[in-house]
């Protein structure tokens, strides 16, 4: 029987006081306990950035990789040991900028992992540069005249990229977020949770209050059907005065990548012996003759 306390460790988080990441951390721990997972049942893979430090601050298997590179490490680990529940943590720069190519191709692969993007619309750890999700005109140390590019729309990108579960959460609403994390982990296949996460130090535009004013829950509308791609696409485009949170799109019909690899059908790859049968190797040798 799992318990949220099992996930506690003594590490003191280096996040700023009031950072949205604290709420995300608590939500993740709650979700794991609620799913009756133990710290050793999961593998948390992260990139580099404030959000990617999350695996340090809870007790669980963790692999903190390189900036932007968490998804391929996670995919390799998942395919090699599909018994592990793999959850990826990255930020908006990490996940949608430098790791953008991995994002695109992981979605079309559909491995059974959950991808949490702590999206604060700014580079925090490098102290305040504009990010791929910063809004056009965003002023920062490297965009003194305002960011010129239009911002990435991760929800639309994920839907266009073939993600089978696309959702958005809000760090300051942990009650909603933790349920969303449970749904995402329960989804069989790639699940994206883009989390609106106020950066209290470097993003003075998209603040907690700014988000709070705008977000509304899709759950509140019983008629909303996340299985309807066209309806979901309309929600994906919504940004500005109103920002939907919750499960935006979900397709349960897609098989996972690992289900389609014949070598993985009889159990995780990592459990197979490294000692190949000698007679099999000898037979293969004779193919060259």
């Amino acid at each position, binding site marked *: 029987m799992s318990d949220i306390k099992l996930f506690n460790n003594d590490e003191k988080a280096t996040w700023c006081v009031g950072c949205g990441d604290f709420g995300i951390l608590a939500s993740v721990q709650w979700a794991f306990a609620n799913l009756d997972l133990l710290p*050793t049942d999961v593998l948390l893979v992260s990139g580099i950035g404030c959000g990617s430090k999350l695996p*340090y601050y809870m007790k669980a*298997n963790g692999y903190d990789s390189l900036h932007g590179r968490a998804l391929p490490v996670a995919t*390799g680990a*998942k395919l090699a040991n599909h018994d592990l529940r793999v959850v990826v943590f990255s930020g908006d720069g990490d996940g949608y900028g430098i790791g953008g190519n*991995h994002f695109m191709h992981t979605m079309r692969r559909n491995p059974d992992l959950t991808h949490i993007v702590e999206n604060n619309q700014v580079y925090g750890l490098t102290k305040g540069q504009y990010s791929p999700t910063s809004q056009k005109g965003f002023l920062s140390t490297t965009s003194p005249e305002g960011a010129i590019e239009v911002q990435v729309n991760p929800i639309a990108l994920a839907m266009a990229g073939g993600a089978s579960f696309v959702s958005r959460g809000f760090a300051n609403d942990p009650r909603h977020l933790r349920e969303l994390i449970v749904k995402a982990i329960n989804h069989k296949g790639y699940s994206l949770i883009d989390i609106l996460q106020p950066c209290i130090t470097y993003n003075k535009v998209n603040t907690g209050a700014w988000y709070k004013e705008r977000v509304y829950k899709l759950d509140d509308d019983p008629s909303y059907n996340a299985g309807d791609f066209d309806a979901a696409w309309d929600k994906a485009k919504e940004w500005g005065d109103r920002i939907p949170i919750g499960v935006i799109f979900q397709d349960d019909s897609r098989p996972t990548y690992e289900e389609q690899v014949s070598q993985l059908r009889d159990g995780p790859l990592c459990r197979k012996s*490294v000692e190949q049968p*000698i007679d099999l190797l000898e037979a293969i040798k004779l193919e060259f*003759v």
Partner: protein
Amino acid sequence: MAVVVNNVTFKIGGEAGQGSESSGAGFTKAFARAGLFVYGLQDYMSRIRGGHNFFQIRVSDRDIQATDSGVQVLLPLDIQTVEAHLHEVVPGGAVIMDAALKIDDGRLTDRGVKPIRVPLTEIAQREGGNILIAADFAPPTVAATVKLMVNTAAVAVAAGMTDLPFEYIEQIIRENFGGKKGAAIADANVAVARAAYEEGSREFGADFGWKVKPILSNPRMVINGNQAIAFGAAAAGCRWISMYPMTPATTVSEWLAAHSRKLGIVVKQCEDEITAILMAIGAAHTGVRAMTSTSGGGLSLMVEAVGLAAMTETPLVVVLAQRGGPSTGLPTRTEQSDLQFVLHASQGEFPRVILAPGTLEECFLAGYRAFNFAEKYQTPVFILTDMNQSTAVRAVDPERFNVRPEPIDRGELLTDADLDVLTEPYLRHKITPSGISPRALPGHKNAVVLTTSDEHYENGQAVEEAEMRVLQMDKRMRKADMAARDIRPPLLEGPQDAELTLVGWGSTYGPIHEARLLLEAEGLHVNHLHYFDIWPFPKEATERILGSARRAIDIENNYTAQLALVIRMVTGIDFKHKILKYDGRPFSGDELAQKVREGVLARV
């Protein structure tokens, strides 16, 4: 007429897509079946159709591992092959061509080369085309097949002229086109081959000075370097390769993919090389023996992740098949110019192992040993090969491939039984005297496995504090000292007290070996020092051997003498003489012997 038996070189050339490669591969196999030793060199351009490709087959009664620059039989499938290679054909040699090929025979006879004109197209049409028509093949298929059967005819003429018994040609044709659907195609090719063989034997055999005589021997394997590396990896229990296609590395993964069901290996082609190496790292982290393969351009993308594997102490094998650089360089040509790159790839300092096989047996061994090194030292291991070695084939006795050449050594890997009794918190990066931290795999209930690309505490938490930094750095670098003890000294062949020492690494083993034999036959006292295990560098053996060498020549397929730089860096020994080749082509034995004579011996 003096006749040379079992020492002959054939060269088949044509446009890409014309079939010189498959004809050459088949012909090579036929000689191996006849008990002969064969070395087959493939040369192709970076294009799918057109251009000029060739396949060179050297046949001998001794184990050969390099080409010879003289060609006795040229088989041009187009005019360009004659233009490009006529100068290589030795006097008394032959050019076998279709009766209609528009070449002035006088150009051949002026050089003492025999024009062997055979109506190859006509034979293919007459003997083979009719069989296909009778088997109800559609006219376009008949036309396309007849075109390819011209190659069969040319090869069969060569076999007839050199007395290779026809049964070997027929056997290979039947194997290549076997099966119900291919029966008519096999029959057609055999009929074409037989007619051409008889004509070659009858009309031109008596007058031709190079013959092939089968030798009774056990069947030999015909294998190339990439297949040998892949097979070695498979024998070592590799179950994962993630890669992005790049010449000349791709065939490593293609061989594994072809055997993936049989061996239970996952082959994952990725969106780029960054993903390829990271997926391999992810897979390795869970305990799977994992690798990636690439060429220099791909490794350039992988570089950051090489350091990740080192920092997180994840066992990783990287095959680097070198080609001409920099940048896209010479995509289908050979070079040994990435040794310094691999030695220094990725920021910071960490232990790494570099293996550079130079024979097919060594390729297999490197594929196998690399995984033992990777797991024992929990660090990246590179296998350095190159275009030449990746594609060249050789006939090898199967006994030379021991499928379990050493026990599989997983290093300090904690088993489930070990972890069942673990009561302390697990420390992934525990400081130990050997530098090796016992490795638990994620998934056991008693061990939380945490690691990071940041410098870390023993438990995997990031650290910035100086003392722990030094402890962890020292711990990792102790693994290099230990790995150094597993590295084999360079191979020394020839007399200890030679007047001249030829020094090389990796794929130049064959040509240097051959050059040494040629020079030795002239009465020179020459030995050969060759490096297959390069890093950690075998310092003491090098100092002992090179320190007392009278004169040493560094021989490499690169511009900057990269091994010589390593030797100088580690031992302070400098080379006065170097033979460096960076035209994208491998050395041949006789070419190298000539360079030694001209460049070094002449300056005594």
